[in-house]
């Protein structure tokens, strides 16, 4: 399939697929969003619609789960997140909400992927604050309320609370796809091992599904997992674990599906300016009395120990382990993306290459291949 001219008049900053992968939205500094549809069976992308969505650079896009209709969120340098709705399969969009709580340009927006949590979107901007909005009434998607906001890393910001425009900064957020087995949570909740329970497989799967609402956010070089936990009788998001070891600005974060490992652990990938793609393994364990983080910067597989933020005795949490890290880009890495099962990771960056990593039987990741944007790269030994 050949390259497709989008018709944008400025650089494209983000691309988002709808839930089925049949619609593709692009956003640009030209302030427009363009929607493309995948033609069956040729699989070519053709332009479906185009509309001006913001009054400044548009940085990020996200489609909502389809049970809420065709909803597209965008965020921009104009400090807003906007929600657009289409009732004609993407031929036209109407703005239905503007969320303008951010104190700076909004860098990334992401709808919660698992519809079971309700219609929620998270965003993070140059003020370093991650915000979660909730549309409680599916009958009225114009109404969104700010359910949560928290500074991810106040140390990385200026005293004004906003990253300076003339300095490099980056912020990212991604939801846990969830909706899949969380056997480990079940194990800890009840204090029994799922494997010891004599249950039909399907029943076990159903029981094990404790849909934990969680997302990962990065601000400058800090990456933090937020999870909804019971606190004083109410469930609310809290920063729970930190993914350590980043020595420069984190450009992107991506939370993988845990389906292929049967929910035994979570995988989160980060793309960093320091040139490393990192894959963190988060395994559920009971907190309390575990030594603080001892992160040895270096080789892949280094165990980070307990990196929980403010862990309480008997809390459930993740043991964070650096499963793998790769510096093959030999330059800044800007984007990481998982396949649906969490078995293939892509990374891309300044070397003009997309690198693919696949999970081997042992759970470790190995190189799968490289797609190069530089002509004549076939047959080459990639350098």
């Amino acid at each position, binding site marked *: 399939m050949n390259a497709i001219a989008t018709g944008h008049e400025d650089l494209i900053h983000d691309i988002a697929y709808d839930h089925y992968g049949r619609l593709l939205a692009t956003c640009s500094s030209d302030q427009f969003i363009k929607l493309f549809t995948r033609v069956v069976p040729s699989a070519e992308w053709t332009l479906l619609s185009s509309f001006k969505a913001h009054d400044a650079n548009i940085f990020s896009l996200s489609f909502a789960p389809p049970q809420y209709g065709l909803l597209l969120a965008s965020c921009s340098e104009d400090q807003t997140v906007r929600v657009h709705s289409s009732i004609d399969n993407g031929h036209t969009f109407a703005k239905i909400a503007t969320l303008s709580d951010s104190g700076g340009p909004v860098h990334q927006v992401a709808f919660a992927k698992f519809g079971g949590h309700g219609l929620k979107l998270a965003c993070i901007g140059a003020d370093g604050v991650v915000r979660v909005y909730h549309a409680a009434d599916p009958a009225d998607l114009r109404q969104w309320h700010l359910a949560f906001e928290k500074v991810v890393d106040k140390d990385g910001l200026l005293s004004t609370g906003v990253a300076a425009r003339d300095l490099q900064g980056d912020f990212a957020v991604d939801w846990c796809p969830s909706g899949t087995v969380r056997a480990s949570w079940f194990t800890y909740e009840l204090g029994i091992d799922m494997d010891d329970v004599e249950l039909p497989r399907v029943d076990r799967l159903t029981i094990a599904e404790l849909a934990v609402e969680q997302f990962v956010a990065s601000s400058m070089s800090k990456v933090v997992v937020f999870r909804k936990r019971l606190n004083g009788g109410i469930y609310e998001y809290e920063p729970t674990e930190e993914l350590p070891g980043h020595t420069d600005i984190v450009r992107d974060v991506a939370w993988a599906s845990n389906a292929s490992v049967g929910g035994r652990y979570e995988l989160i990938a980060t793309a960093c300016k320091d040139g490393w793609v990192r894959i963190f393994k988060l395994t559920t364990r009971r907190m309390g009395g575990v030594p603080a983080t001892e992160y040895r910067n270096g080789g892949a597989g280094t165990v980070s120990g307990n990196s929980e933020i403010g862990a309480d005795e008997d809390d459930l949490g993740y043991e964070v382990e650096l499963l793998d890290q790769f510096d093959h880009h030999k330059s800044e890495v800007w984007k990481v993306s998982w396949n649906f099962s969490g078995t293939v990771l892509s990374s891309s960056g300044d070397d003009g290459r997309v690198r693919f990593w696949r999970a081997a039987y042992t759970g470790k990741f190995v190189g799968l291949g490289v797609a190069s*944007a530089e002509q004549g790269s076939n047959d080459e030994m990639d350098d």
Partner: protein
Amino acid sequence: MSGAGPTSFSPSFGGPRPIFSTFEGPMGTPAKESSSITKLFTSPLASGRTTTVEGIRDTSEAEEEMKDEDDSVFTYTLPDAPIAAGRLRDWQDRKRTLKFTLPPLYNSGIAWIDGKKVDGGDQVPIVPDEVKIFPAEIPDSAYSDEYTKFVVDSHELYRALSDADQIGEPMDPSENILPKYATTFLEILDAARRRIFDERLSEAYVVCHCLFASYFADPGIMRAEAVMDWLNQYDPRPTTEETRDIMTTPVPYDEPGFWEFVQKLALRGLFFQCSNCLKEAGIPCADPESKRALQTGTSILETAPKGAKAFEGHRQWRARAIAFGEQCTKLSDARLRRGLIALANILRGDSDTILALSESWQEGTAALFLFHDPAPSRLPEYYQMAVAEFPVDLTVISEAGCAAIIAGDIPKALSVAERLDVCVAAHIADFCDRQRMLDDFYNIETLDLPPFRDWLFMAHAINCCANPGTWFIGVAYLKDTEGTAGLSIIRESITHVYLDTEATLTELLDLCKELQFDTEARQIVMAWSKLQLSRNQVGSALEWLDSIGNSLEIRAITWQLLESNLLKGLTLPDAILQRYLVSPHLCPAMIREFIAPYATYFAFKGHLNEGDIVEAAQYLASLIQFGFLPGRFFGALLGELLPLIDRSQPRALPTTELIAIMNSLYQWEKDTRKYTEGIQFLAKSLSATREAAADMAEDDWRVEYGNVSAKEVIKLVRSKLVTEVSRAYLEGV
């Protein structure tokens, strides 16, 4: 999975990885025919070899080492690649970077060029390539049509085998069905690789053929013969050229390479060719001993034991070969003597001769297996002898896989096969699993890992799920895996399957029901109902929502129906909705409950159109007084009342109704939020009239009041209501 990849990937595969054979020329010897039974396989694993997860890890680490040492991963160029060859540095100097994202389900993503956030923004002018998007596939994962056929055929065979085989039950050797299915799978794979012309699939075929020859040989063929057949097929020797160079000369025997040629034929088990060669070569038999020796030699070659009885007959035949060797020592013709003795040494399985004449570890192993002692348990021993002379070239993936197979390290072989083609690897793992060849592999190290066969099937199934048209095949495999991972993958992907038709929807919901995926079923139904709404199939959407008891959505849709009609005028409902509106008793209870306001409005409009003003007014009045009516609709409904309370019309509402409406109006105006929302909506409704005046129905009340403000409309309604009450009073009703 080379066969899966687009043709554009293929060139890159040829570079870093040499291959054994290009499969040109004849593809091996004719099939052996025998009806007798070969001795049942004895696993080399049982002969002391302990296979661990290290076997798997080794191959992963080998990949990693390779990657670290020379970074030799497969590279392909994006179509219309935007960076000119060798100009990466220039591109980077433009402060550009490459980004890529994968879609929710499929294996084909999109790459694009973005600017780097440096020093307050990007000032470099844009070039056309920088506003393009570049489709890119995960290497070896996208199915071509031809490869899809292979996947489908393989799955059908897998299903048939599963139906025929009872996993876990020890099989009677005579009832072993696996060789038959293995042969069929090999035929399917052979056909696929010939259609697809892909080196990696061809390499996978070599590995698969080697495995099946070594462990799943047809009962009618001796295993050693099967292994030699495998070798002759993927690396045929002597070549067609060598045969022609010798045998087309006037006197082949006079050719310097004659004996080498004959010995190669023997070494490869090509007995009839070898015998014919000796007969037709013009060997001068000056004395009777020479003639007798030649006759003995050709006779031994022609009576080489074959088929199921070959194993039993081998010892006797070998004794004849030994005697033949002794007979040849007495020959006076030195050249003939040396040649025939070497031939005899091959036939009697002399390891020194065989290894000296062999050119590869495969040839040495296969020849020792065929001639020395064809007991399957000795195969790893022969392998060790051969590799001591000819090291395995581990840089050739298929060679590494075949070496692992011959050495008896099946998990490692499967791991290597997985690097070539995961579909092939999964299926051959299934055969090995059914033959209980992987039992020794599962131990303490694999406790936290899924069974290797399952893991391979999951990897294959994930690819199936991520390719259009093979999702249900992927699901079928996943359902057959142990543990919860397979079901989790189905659960993760099932909502991403596009609901193109109701048949797809039904199929997915049936699967949800079978697997008790209640949450996913609800999500799918909700997504389908949204699709139906976007297709204006409101009735169908409501029915599906009713099927999952989603009252919240039904309520939302029915209010949206009313809203849409108040804004755009009456629109014709679809067939299902029309049926429910006309015959409420046909309507499911939950839908009936929530559709009531819209149904009332629909009835009001119907009577109005028919000129039945009294009936129309009663429906409208009841709607206006509906206790749960959202405040935003109130103003617009009052507007609808205007034509009905005009003095030019006969009186449509009794006093009590008029007073009740006035009371509702009063209550609405008192509630600031409701009033504000109602005025805003009414204003929107009026402005819609102005924007689409031409499309408005003539009897739409807004045609007359389109230029009046919302508040004025309410004022007018109140005034008319008061007038109408007084009129009723004067008329004494």
